[in-house]
């Protein structure tokens, strides 16, 4: 395996991905990610000099429209899915200490 994933990298990826891994999961993730990156490194065989990155296959542009309300008030329907609610608000842990 040419891509060795360090503890620091996995720690950092965990922060970016908002995932908490136990030690066993961390070791597995290091191995899996290293193997995948080894495989992905195959792309380096290709000369892509001067090739524009293609995010969309068709020339898509921003679609502009009037910001008009077309749906009904879905507040109650949306709040029905809330893990925790108080009246018409979502309850979340304290964010400002």
């Amino acid at each position, binding site marked *: 395996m040419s891509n060795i994933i360090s503890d620091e*990298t*996995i720690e*950092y*990826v*965990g922060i*970016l*991905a*908002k*995932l*908490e*891994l136990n030690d066993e*999961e961390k070791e597995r*993730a290091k191995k*899996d*990610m290293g*193997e*995948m*990156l080894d*495989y*992905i*490194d*195959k*792309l*380096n*065989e*290709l000369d*892509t000099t001067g*090739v*524009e*990155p*293609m*995010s*969309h*296959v*068709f020339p*898509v542009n*921003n*679609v502009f*429209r009037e910001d008009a309300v077309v749906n009904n008030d*879905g507040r109650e*329907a*949306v709040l*029905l*899915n*809330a*893990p*925790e609610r108080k009246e018409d608000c*979502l309850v*979340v*842990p*304290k*964010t400002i200490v």
Partner: protein
Amino acid sequence: MSLMSLTAVQLGEKIKNREISVIEAANAALDAIDAKESSINGFVTVDRENALKRAEKVQKDIDEGNILSPIAGVPVAIKDNMCTKDMLTTCSSKILGNFKPSYTAEAVINLEKAGAVIIGKTNMDEFAMGSTTETSAYGATKNPWNTEHVPGGSSGGSCAVIAAEECSYALGSDTGGSIRQPSSFCGVTGIKPTYGTVSRYGLIAYGSSLDQIGPIAKDVTDCATVLEIISSHDKKDSTSIKRDDIDFTSALVDDVKGMKIGIPKGYFGEGLDPEVKEAVLNAAKELEKKGAILEEFDLDLVDYAIPAYYVIACAEASSNLARFDGVKYGYRTQDYNGLHNMYKKTRSEGFGAEVKRRIMLGSFVLSSGYYDAYYLKALRTKALIKKAFDEAFAKYDVILGPAAPTTAPKLGESLSDPLKMYLGDIYTISVNLAGLPGISVPCGLDCKGLPIGLQLIGDCFKEKNIIRAAYSFEKCEKKL
């Protein structure tokens, strides 16, 4: 014979002619589900009560002449990553285990307008990440041809319930082969349309630049009929394309005289099961007998599609799945200490191993210092792959190959080695990268009695070519 042995269009015809009522059709599906689900596990949710209520309403609409569609009253199963109002939509994940959307996906609305009766939601790989339907949080789906084998994935539930005759037709979604590969494994027909043809509004996103919804059914006629109904230009999906050539059923013509079919040599090399190879090449010969012109050619970059795909799809997934944080809907962890700990614990408990693996890879390739080397490199590779297809379609009307390198593997064989599982998508993945339409049609059985799928790929917006070729093949083929 069960009504579920009929194709969707045949059943629709009988409903239209008043030979069968919509309620009888719905009950036939529900009875088949009762009889078979314990061995197949193709559904996450079966909504008996609402299906019957809906059937009554549709019957009334038909009686009053309000619905004239060829599939009015026919039962449908929807992959569980498409939102259905007030009906559980889990994406086969624990994190959405209790999620009842407040709206319905546009493709499903289009079906409802045509009188479809939704029977339930089908099992899938969690968030469509997988090729076997084993990563579902609600247990693996079994292949109806042999329940020791996987149905493929990620639309494994949709394909299995059609193969098992539990429902008339289904919707699936295809990000890297998730309609075509399980269709191949289950001996059913499935189309992945040109990117932008079917609205993604209400489809829970995995890789947004690759995801497309498509039909899964017993034959090409059903698929073309359903695709015609679900295709629409939708302002709510910014990548939706306005097309005026969606009369796909007009391509149900048994004639391939003069059609130029390219056979990429790279699709028949190392790693392809000899029995699959033989069946697919025999299918090509059948089309040749009908007047198609076959030619082998070199399709460049076949080996680079999978690594490019995993970078792009995982990058998009890491961003798309950031929304599952335990705040607005879905699962929230019980004990936590502050906001960030709540996010982390919710996601770590709510997502399965494969989803976490892909989110982490995606976060990594997008992170500062790696973005150019991985993400942009993959997007440049995608541009080259698209160019290779453009060159091929300058010469050919259709590209023909297998849908998958093997028939369905046994349950439990794939998950231990993710990379090996990813390699199973080699013939389907580049189609998504290039935004092309593709169809998988059954073309034989291997010595174990498992189905083999023929894949036909068309140029962008040329669904009609592949529908015509697939329909012509179906007409000459000795039925499975």
